[in-house]
C-alpha cells in the first residue's frame, strides 16, 4: 500500500531522533539497550526486515488487530507481518529504510517516551495497547505519523481477507457472486 506514507521520516527528523537515542545510549549504554531489546527469534524467508524488526511488527500487529472471541484470527494469525515484509520488498530504498527505522523507533518507544527500562515487544500485551494508543494521540507529529502509517496498512490488508468478512457482515465481492 503506502509509498509516500513514510516520506515524513526525513533525515532531519531522524537526526533529532538520533540525538534522543544518543542521549539514551549515553545514559544507559549501547550494551544496556541491546540487553533491553534481547534476542529476537530467527525467522526464515524474510525479504527486507531483520529478526528484531519483524518481532516488533508482530507485536504491533497483535496490538492493532488482536485475536479474540469475535475474530478467531487476528493480524498475527493471518500472517500480516510477512505480507508487510513482501510489500516492502517492492518499495523504493528510501521507503524501506524509513519503515525499518520507524520499527526501531516503535521498539524503543517505552524507553524514549515513557522512560521505562523495557522495549515495546517486551511490554505485557495490555500495556502495549495503551502505549501504542498514546502514539496515535500524541502531541508529537512524528509519533502520530508512525501510528497512522502502520494502522492503515494493517487495517487495509486485514479487512481485505475473506476469512474476516463473515465477522463483519460483508458478503464479499459482488461481481463474483452475481456471476455465480
Amino acid at each position, binding site marked *: 500500500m503506502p509509498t*509516500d506514507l513514510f*516520506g515524513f521520516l526525513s533525515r532531519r527528523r531522524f537526526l533529532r531522533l538520533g540525538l534522543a537515542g544518543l542521549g539514551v545510549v549515553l545514559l544507559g549504554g549501547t550494551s544496556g539497550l541491546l540487553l533491553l531489546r534481547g534476542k529476537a527469534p530467527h525467522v526464515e524467508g524474510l525479504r527486507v526486515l531483520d529478526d528484531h524488526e519483524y518481532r516488533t511488527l508482530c507485536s504491533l500487529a497483535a496490538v492493532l488487530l488482536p485475536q479474540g472471541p469475535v475474530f478467531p484470527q487476528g493480524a498475527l494469525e493471518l500472517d500480516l507481518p510477512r505480507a508487510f515484509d513482501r510489500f516492502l520488498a517492492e518499495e523504493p530504498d528510501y521507503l524501506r529504510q524509513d519503515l525499518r527505522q520507524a520499527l526501531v523507533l516503535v521498539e524503543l518507544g517505552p524507553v524514549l517516551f515513557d522512560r521505562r527500562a523495557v522495549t515495546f515487544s517486551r511490554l505485557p500485551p495490555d500495556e502495549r495497547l495503551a502505549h501504542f494508543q498514546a502514539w496515535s494521540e500524541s502531541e508529537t507529529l512524528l509519533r*502520530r505519523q508512525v501510528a497512522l502509517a502502520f494502522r492503515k496498512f494493517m487495517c487495509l490488508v486485514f479487512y481485505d481477507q475473506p476469512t474476516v468478512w463473515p465477522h463483519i457482515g460483508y458478503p464479499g465481492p*459482488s461481481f463474483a457472486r452475481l456471476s455465480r
Partner: protein
Amino acid sequence: MSRLGAIVDLSKEPLAGPLSVEYCVIGSGPAGATAARALGRAGKEVLVLEEGADRVGPALTQRDGEMYDQLYMDRGGRSTADLSIAVLSGRVLGGGSVINASDVVPIHPSVLDVWQRRFGLADYTVQALAEDEAAALADLSASRPDDSLLNRNNTLLRDGCHKLGWRGEVMLHNRVGCAGLGTCLLGCPLSAKRNARIVPIPQAIEGGVRFLTRARALRIEQLGADRKRITVRSLDERGYHEQHHLTIEAKRVIIAAGAIASAQLLRRSGLGNQHVGRGFLLQPQLPIAASFAEPVRCFEGIPQTYAVTQFEELQHPVHGFWGFRIEAIGGTPGIVATMLPAIGAAGQRLMQRYPHIAGALLLHPDAPRDDSILSIERNGRLQIHYQLDAEQVTRFRQSVEAAVRVYLAAGAEEVLVPQTPPLSFRSLGDLPKLAGLTLRPASVPLISAHQMGTVKMGASPATAACSPDGELYGAPGVFVLDSSLFPSSPSSHIMTPILTLAHHLSRRLLSR
C-alpha cells in the same frame, strides 16, 4: 511509426527504440485519451504513454489490497508530506476515470467569470465552452440515476436533508447498465462506467492511436521547437520496478498525467517557469461515519448519488464557487477500516457495525495557496507540501456540524468524526464538542481525489505556467492538458471539467 492503433503492454513486449511520432501524449486518463482521439481522428500520428496496466472486466477484482496496489499511484499510499491528506490518483489505462465515483458536475459558470477576471482567461466564456461541455456530456452518456438506483446510504442522507428542509440533489452520473456492484472506486468489472477506457480509448485506437502501457515517462528534453525527446522506462508486470529503456522523439508533447504527475514530470525535466508545482489545490475531503440501528449496507449499490448542496455558494465574489457539500459515500471494508479511528478490540468492535455504518464525504472547494509546493528529493522521492489553513478548519467545523445535523435528522444513533481521539455526536446537545475538531496532521483521514492547479494557465508567464492554449511558457510545443491547468476549483468533481477542457484545447491545438 505505423498508424495501426493498438494497446501494447511494454512489460510483455519491450519495444526497440528510438521511436519517432508527431504527437506523444503522456497519460491516458480522460484528458489524454480525449486529446489522443481528436488528434488521431485528424490524421495525426499519436503515441500515448501510460504507467499503469490495462485492467478491464474480471481483472478488476473488487479487492482493496490488490486494486489500490494496481490502480492507484504509489500503490494507493501517496499522501502529503506530513501525512495529513491521502492523495488519490489513478495509475491504469483510462486514468482517474476508471476509479472515480462517476459523478458528473460541469464547470460552474461563475467560476468562468472568475477565471476571466482574475486569471486573464478572457476567452474562457460559457459560450466558448458550450460545444465542448456538450461533447463531454455526450462522451459520458450523462444521465440522472432514477430512484431505484439509490442505495440506503444515499437515501438516508436524502431523508435527513428533506427533514431539515435543505437543498439537495441526485447527481448526474456516467453509468450505463449499472448493476450496483458497489465498488466504483476500485473500477467496474461490468464496464458500466462510460469512462476513458470504455469510450475515447477504443475510438482513438480506431483512429490509429497506439497506447503503450507500463511505460513511465522519466523526462522530456526540448531539442527544438518541433523536436522533443522523451526518455521512457518500461515497468514490470505489476508496475513495481523499471526495466527497459526507450527513447521517443516527437514534434509535440501533450502532458496529461494528472495534476501531481504532470508537474512532477516537468520538474524532473527542468521545464517550465517558477509557477510549475506551486500554488496548487487539493480540494480536501473529510469522511464522516454515522451508525444506524437499521442495516445500511453501504457496500452495495452505487456508492455516491446524493449530495446535500444547501451550503454551496455558486456566486461567491472571489472564488465563484465556494462553501461545501455533503455527499454519501460507500466503501469496501479495507478502506473503511483505515478511516475509523480506534485500534485493538475497540476498532474491531466498530468494524462489526460495518453493515450499519453510513458514510459521507464533506467536499470543500479550494483556493490556490502560496505555500503548496511540489518538490522532488535527490533520491527521487516526491514531496507534496500542503497544509490546511485556518479558514479551511473553520469551514470544516461548519460542514461537520451540518453533517451531524443531517444524520441525526435521518435517525442516526451516533455520528462519528474519525479524528484521533474520535468525536462522537449522539444528539444536538453534543455539538459543543465541535470545538475539539482540530484536524491536526496525521490525526484525521482527510483525502484528496481532486488535485489541480499545479501548472496553471493564465494570460502571462508572470502569474501562470501555461498559456490559455495550455502551452508551457518557455517550452514551445510542450502542452499540458489536465486538471493541472485549473487556476481555481471549477466544480465539486473534476472529471467533467477536465473533459470539457480536453475537448476545448484539442480543438485549439488542431486549429493552430
